[in-house]
């Protein structure tokens, strides 16, 4: 096990009481227990409160654009399969601005983990509706209440048979640690949608609101049963299930590509003899 201090201790710009603090704590613990040293991990994010995470932990990091965390994350894994790749950012980043990349990432199935902080609001831009904000939720920008139907990331991911789909809550760190570790260990695209309450801008889905509803799925639940998983994906009312909702084992892209078999692409020399042969074929 790695000493947790290896991941550093940083001053954050998050509000005291924001769920993100606990997600950060859980990530460090998960990595330490998995024996992943900082240089073995690439931590990729977009923009938002959640997406600042690479600045608050010592890991290789790529803090990219709003909505665009997933494309570089996948590329990092393909180019250097030895790295453990974790993408982390908010509900707006992953399901709104980057929605197309989310769908594509599920289909592409690169071996990586997505930690999506779901606070059902845009935190960084001070409280507009996000794709997961409930219909009717009143915000400064939606003064008559949100009129769009909410996006259900779990249902979409299950419907598309993503390799691993889990839900967790920053208010239950031991369970969150387990989910992060299971996601990292599962081959292919693995996502954990994490309720991480925004105490400043979401007065509906508060810490207490989640606490009251979230329950852990028991051992009797079979996450390889797709029909059951679809049903759990839509259980989002008085009770909300936490745990591995669905998993399958479609072969990850990085295991399908012969180019990935030799290790880091950047270390492979240019084979001039092969290139000479390629040129000859144009004659």
């Amino acid at each position, binding site marked *: 096990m790695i000493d947790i201090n290896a991941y550093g201790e940083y001053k954050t710009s998050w509000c005291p009481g924001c769920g993100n603090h606990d997600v950060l704590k859980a990530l460090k613990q998960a990595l330490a227990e998995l024996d992943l*040293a*900082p*240089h*073995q991990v*690439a931590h*990729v994010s977009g*923009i938002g409160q959640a997406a*600042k995470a*690479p*600045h608050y932990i*010592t*890991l*290789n*990091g*790529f*803090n*990219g*654009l709003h909505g*665009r965390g997933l*494309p*570089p*994350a*996948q*590329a*990092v894994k*393909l*180019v*250097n399969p*030895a*790295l453990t790749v974790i993408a982390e950012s908010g509900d707006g980043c992953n399901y709104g601005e980057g929605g*197309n*990349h989310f*769908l*594509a990432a599920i289909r*592409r199935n690169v071996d990586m983990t997505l930690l999506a902080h779901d606070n059902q609001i845009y935190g960084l831009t001070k409280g507009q509706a996000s794709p997961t904000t409930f219909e009717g939720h009143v915000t400064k920008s939606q003064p008559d209440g949100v009129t769009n139907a909410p996006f259900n990331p779990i249902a979409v991911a299950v419907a598309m048979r993503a390799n691993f789909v889990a839900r967790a809550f920053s208010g239950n760190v031991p369970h969150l640690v387990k989910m992060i570790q299971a996601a990292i260990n599962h081959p292919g695209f693995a996502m954990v949608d994490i309720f991480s309450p925004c105490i400043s801008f979401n007065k509906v889905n508060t810490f207490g609101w989640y606490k009251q509803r979230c329950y852990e799925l028991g051992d009797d639940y079979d996450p390889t049963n797709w029909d059951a998983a679809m049903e759990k994906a839509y259980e989002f009312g008085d009770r909300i299930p936490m745990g591995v909702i669905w998993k399958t084992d479609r072969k990850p892209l990085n295991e399908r*590509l*012969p*180019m*990935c078999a*030799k290790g*880091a*692409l*950047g*270390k*492979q020399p*240019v*084979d*001039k003899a*092969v*290139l*000479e042969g*390629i*040129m*000859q074929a*144009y*004659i």
Partner: protein
Amino acid sequence: MSIHSRHIVIGGAAGQGLVTVGQLLCKSMIRAGYEVLVTQDYMSRVRGGHNTYNIRVGVEPLTGPTDACDILVALNQETVELHRNSLSSKGLLVLDEELDALGLPALKVPFATLAPKAIFQNVAALGVLCSALGIAKEIPSKLVHDSFGKKGDAVVQQNMQVLDDAYAWGLANGLECEKLPQPKNLTPRMFLNGNEAIALGALAAGVKFCSFYPMTPATSVAQNLITHGRKMGVIVEQVEDEIAALNMGLGASYAGAPTLVPTSGGGFALMTEAVSLAGVMEQPVVIVLAQRPGPATGLPTRTEQADLNLVLYAGHGEFPRAIFAPGTIEECFLLTHKAFDITEKYQTPAFVLTDQELADRHMGVVPFDLSRLPAVAQPDLGDGAAEQYRRYALTRDGLSPRRIPGYGSSIVLADCHEHTEDGHITEDMGMRVAMNDKRFIKAEGMVDEVVPPKRFGAAHPKRLLVCWGSTEGAAREAADMLNAKGESVGVLSFSQVWPLNPGQFMADLEAAEEVICVEGNKTAQFARLLRQETGFAMHGTVLRYDGRPFTPDYILGKLAG
């Protein structure tokens, strides 16, 4: 001196195999020792429409397309109708005996008899044309062997039979067609287009990752990398959109792969936020932009040079960039190779700006001498003093050693905000200024490495034609034609359009009595850029924006009138 050359135009509907006939014929002519230059004119459709494959053949090196037509190979009636007036006085029409020659001197070929099945028509046409042009039969025979060998002996045999019959028919039906002069160039040459040369240049430079979303006329850059990717260890991923393409490319670059992202104007417009990301993150990447006419979807399969401003200014905020604009197929190779070096050395995006004409222009090109290529800059592969490593360390020349995550124990934090030396978000004014200045100190080094413009035509010209990118060939030939008439015309051709290094060319501009910018857009973008950077106002422009490539005749016409 005007170049003596002959012009063969193959016309037909998409799907009729005109490209196949054209390619077989061109390869035969190159193998026979001729110089060949092909431009393609096609409509944005997969079947039907009217497309042409324009072959220029000669014994002297060729530089660009022309409008002439000495042999018109009509695969359908529409071709005869559309091109009857462009056929030269000694010209010949080659067509199927079922078609109507509309009274033109014609060679009516019984294709149905020569080719027992429709799929053999290409080879039948090859046989007839080679005999008509006086190319020894051994040459197309060997080509048919080389081209169809993989499909098995039976296929080769059938095609050889068709070729023999067609060639014999051509000889027997004595053609009233001026034979080509004796060829001179017996060096083995590749039959290569601009996009293929770009792909080869990237491979030679060590490209390892390419992410793309298909868009004409850039798609075949990625397609060529797909073809060779397995052998060369390159991952080519077709992605969900162009936004993903460049963001993914930057992730690949961060992880240590030399990366190429090809697109056209519309796709590039979607990438602009990530161009800015590459700038602040100091992430190397080569972006190939093959231009086509806009705005928006414009003329999807035609050519233009109207995206210079887009590439110059794409991306919010300020950061340095390099823009190469190859003028020839060879430069497509060499400058793509150089772009990989510059982007890694200066850790800022490098562009290769081409257009449909150059992307699809085919020529005979001697295989590139890989042993003579300069070395390409590499990231810092060391791991010394890992604890102290800072991705954006402030240095005298603005260059911070770029380490690759996972190669050692150094922690590499790449960031899109303004950042500290170790890559963390900062809002400190002093650090902001220091980092912005650092990025522009790099730009000073880039100016010293600018590829100087090339000079052609008269040595101390009275009239100077200034051009950039693919326009070079037509401008050179126009100057040659004017000089042959006793005028004094030179060409100054830019194959790097940013940054500019005025010391390299101001004397040329000032020495000429008249300086005219020749470029493929409506607003003279390069002429304006040059004025903005140097204060020099050119005296006139020759512009083209009808979607068709520059030809010498077009330039002469505009200069005259």
